């Protein structure tokens, strides 16, 4: 049986004006378990708190009820008060008789009657409270960043700057990501490589950062502060430590016709290759699907020419196991496939290209060495049509497009159009747009410059059809302002393809038990207040894996994610919320219902031997809640048919007691 003290606050006249506080404290005196009941002007004042502390000691109270303002206001205050008097802070319950009583009801009888009922409910609840102690868990002071694009690079650099070791896992042979493929960046037109590659070098040289390139995350176990991760380092058949990146092998390799993915297949590379000149790590990789030596044991040229002796045809995939305290997801994006948009003739004509391909065509390190030549005949195009929103904002075509706005296309298309007009003033450039969206610093100015200074023709409307005819591409579109159908004979058509999350994100989300939206973008813990955290504790989001983003936005989010990680890793121990789910193993069916509703992946199962009621023993699958991960929402408690899962601090019995007290 509890020994409960009741403390009714007047809150000056805020409560006492509408509630007869004396009547309330008198009425609650007779409730079961109550041994002391009083009222005072300001319970939250020093004097009021001392009154509570004294009563706890004098009456050997095991629980207290404070009838006062909202628990959102002073629950923490009174918990501290109780703790100072030696009482477990979770033995405190608040009856909200201000915001939810005195302030919303007019007359004293009504207010008093309700305040008494709310007080009784709190007493009924505290009768069933149990002391709770938050769990503690250690923090592994190392972070994992998954993805080595600009988002991952920035996050890793920021974390390392704070003194914590960071590992970057990148599936490609080099870090750099999409930004490395870009030519210029909007709205300032800096050269992408000029601002990215120094950062890549910083990463390579930072002794806090390890890069696992050509690697994948294979398994994630554990929880915030204590993740156990298996990383598969794929065999690149080149000893990274020895390879100097001299490139001799990539020049001598006889297998010359491998499509070069860095240039989106617009030119070829060798079977042994370094993706681009500034690659980090700058080491060669052998493509096992193209290499004759690996396929049928005939060749070995690269090994012969390698002065360092770094070639190792026998290299195996390697599994690295490492512990991390925090994980940052930075898996980025890809343009969607254009295969299904046959109205734009992407599959029929080499001269219909995506904007990313256009980037490579204008890039000095690209297949045309920066000269704008059309892919089919390497002639200079004189009329270029840009089509915006290809696959974006496409609600009706889930199988080919995306419902959302891809956000970056308006700006890069303006950039492309401007650059073309700048370098080749003899070229006519048309941009078909539905809306031009330019919310960003200096963005609209940039777009207007493309129109006003560079003479790009912006046409409000969409392209309906592209038909290759001889050397031309017949573009049929609508001009909604002029209300006419326009026909343009273009030399090159550039499609602003929608972007989508990288395909690796979905399986990764499953491993991390991090939630995703229907488009496979990672969900943030709160759309406004916790935009860089995943709902899964210890998992953070950086860059376009969370939603379409341009570079400035990506970099700032990357920094934000890093600061959250630093905040986490700076702690020695994590203190949990003690109001968490806890299963009664004897009643648990192991049915997985709770696991399926848990937004945090806090529930796992173990097989345990139990002595059954009929004195036999049986191995049963039972749920276990990880206290460091559970946030205490209680979804599992209702999903559980047997009632084995309960929520500490909000136990079923406690809520039922409140219901009973209110409905008395």
């Amino acid at each position, binding site marked *: 049986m509890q020994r409960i003290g009741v403390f009714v606050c007047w809150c000056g006249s805020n409560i006492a004006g509408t509630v007869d506080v004396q009547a309330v404290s008198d009425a609650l005196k007779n409730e079961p378990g109550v041994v002391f009941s009083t009222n005072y002007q300001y319970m939250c004042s020093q004097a009021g708190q001392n009154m509570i502390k004294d009563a706890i000691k004098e009456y050997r109270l095991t629980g207290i009820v404070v009838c006062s303002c909202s628990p959102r206001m002073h629950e923490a205050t009174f918990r501290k008060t109780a703790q100072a008097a030696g009482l477990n802070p979770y033995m405190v319950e608040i009856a909200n008789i201000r915001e939810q009583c005195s302030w919303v009801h007019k007359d004293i009888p009504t207010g008093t009657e309700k305040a008494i009922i709310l007080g009784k409910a709190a007493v009924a609840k505290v009768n069933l409270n149990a002391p709770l102690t938050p769990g503690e868990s250690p923090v592994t002071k190392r972070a994992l960043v998954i993805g080595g694009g600009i988002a991952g690079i920035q996050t890793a650099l920021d974390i390392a700057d704070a003194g914590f070791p960071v590992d970057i896992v990148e599936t490609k042979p080099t870090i750099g990501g999409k930004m490395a493929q870009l030519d210029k960046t909007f709205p300032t037109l800096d050269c992408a490589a000029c601002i990215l590659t120094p950062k890549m070098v910083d990463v390579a040289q930072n002794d806090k950062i390890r890069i696992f390139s050509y690697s994948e995350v294979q398994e994630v176990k554990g929880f915030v502060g204590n993740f156990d991760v298996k990383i598969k380092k794929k065999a690149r058949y080149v000893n990274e430590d020895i390879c100097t990146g001299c490139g001799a092998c990539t020049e001598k390799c006889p297998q010359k016709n491998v499509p070069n993915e860095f240039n989106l297949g617009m030119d070829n590379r060798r079977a042994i290759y370094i993706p681009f000149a500034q690659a980090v790590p700058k080491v060669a990789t052998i493509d096992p699907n193209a290499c004759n030596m690996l396929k049928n044991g005939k060749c070995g040229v690269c090994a012969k020419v390698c002065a360092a002796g770094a070639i190792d045809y026998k290299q195996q995939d390697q599994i690295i196991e490492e512990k991390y305290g925090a994980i940052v997801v930075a898996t980025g994006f890809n343009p969607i496939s254009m295969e299904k948009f046959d109205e734009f003739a992407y599959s029929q004509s080499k001269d219909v290209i995506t904007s990313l391909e256009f980037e490579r065509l204008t890039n000095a390190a690209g297949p045309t060495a920066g000269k704008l030549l059309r892919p089919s005949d390497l002639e200079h195009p004189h009329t270029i049509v840009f089509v915006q*929103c290809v696959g974006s*904002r496409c609600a*009706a*075509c889930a199988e080919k497009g995306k419902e959302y706005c891809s956000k970056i296309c308006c700006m890069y298309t303006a950039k492309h159009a401007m650059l073309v007009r700048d370098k080749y003033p003899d070229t006519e450039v048309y941009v078909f747009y*539905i809306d031009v969206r330019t919310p960003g610093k200096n963005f609209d100015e940039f777009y207007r410059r493309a129109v006003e200074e560079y003479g790009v023709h912006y046409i409000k*409307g969409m392209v*309906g059809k592209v038909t290759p005819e001889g050397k031309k591409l017949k573009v049929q579109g*609508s001009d909604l302002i002029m209300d006419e159908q326009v026909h343009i004979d273009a030399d090159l058509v550039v499609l602003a393809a929608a972007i989508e999350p990288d395909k690796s994100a979905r399986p990764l989300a499953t491993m991390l038990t991090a939630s995703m939206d229907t488009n496979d973008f990672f969900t943030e813990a709160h759309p406004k207040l916790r935009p860089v955290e995943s709902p899964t504790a210890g998992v953070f989001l950086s860059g376009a894996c969370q939603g379409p983003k341009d570079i400035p936005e990506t970099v700032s989010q990357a920094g934000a994610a890093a600061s959250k990680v630093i905040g986490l890793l700076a702690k020695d121990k994590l203190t949990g919320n003690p109001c968490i789910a806890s299963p009664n193993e004897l009643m648990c069916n192991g049915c997985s219902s709770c696991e399926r509703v848990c937004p945090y992946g806090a529930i796992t199962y173990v097989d345990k031997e139990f002595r059954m009621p009929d004195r036999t023993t049986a191995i049963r699958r039972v749920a276990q809640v990880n206290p460091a991960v559970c946030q205490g929402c209680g979804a599992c408690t209702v999903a559980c048919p047997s009632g084995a899962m309960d929520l500490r601090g909000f136990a079923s019995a406690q809520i039922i007691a409140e219901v009973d007290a209110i409905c008395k």
Partner: protein
Amino acid sequence: MSQQNNNLKEELIRISGVNPKKCMRCGKCSATCPAYEEMEYHPHEFVVMVENGNIEPLLNTESLYRCLTCFACVERCPRGVEPAKLVEAVRLVATRRQGANHMKADDVPAKLDEDLPQQAIVSAFRKYTK
């Protein structure tokens, strides 16, 4: 919008099953329309005008019969608006209005004769009945 006719708008929406509000004004329907040059009102205008309840001009335009019902606009529309269905619905309303000569069930017996296929009556009845 003076000529707003909400009843007619509702009827068109009901017949066609098209929700014109889904249109985001991209114009891809008109961009893709092979009969564009022949039309006074173009596919995207059909959608906007129906949404605005401005339907009388559509009922009286030749454009109605220039639409080939090729469904290119339906296929290409990124929002699934299906303008061709709307055009067809306007056509149906126009047909039913021809001289307001709705056929009534009572009219059927008089029209029957031995040579007339029943099918013809049934389809006429369907077509000319509200």
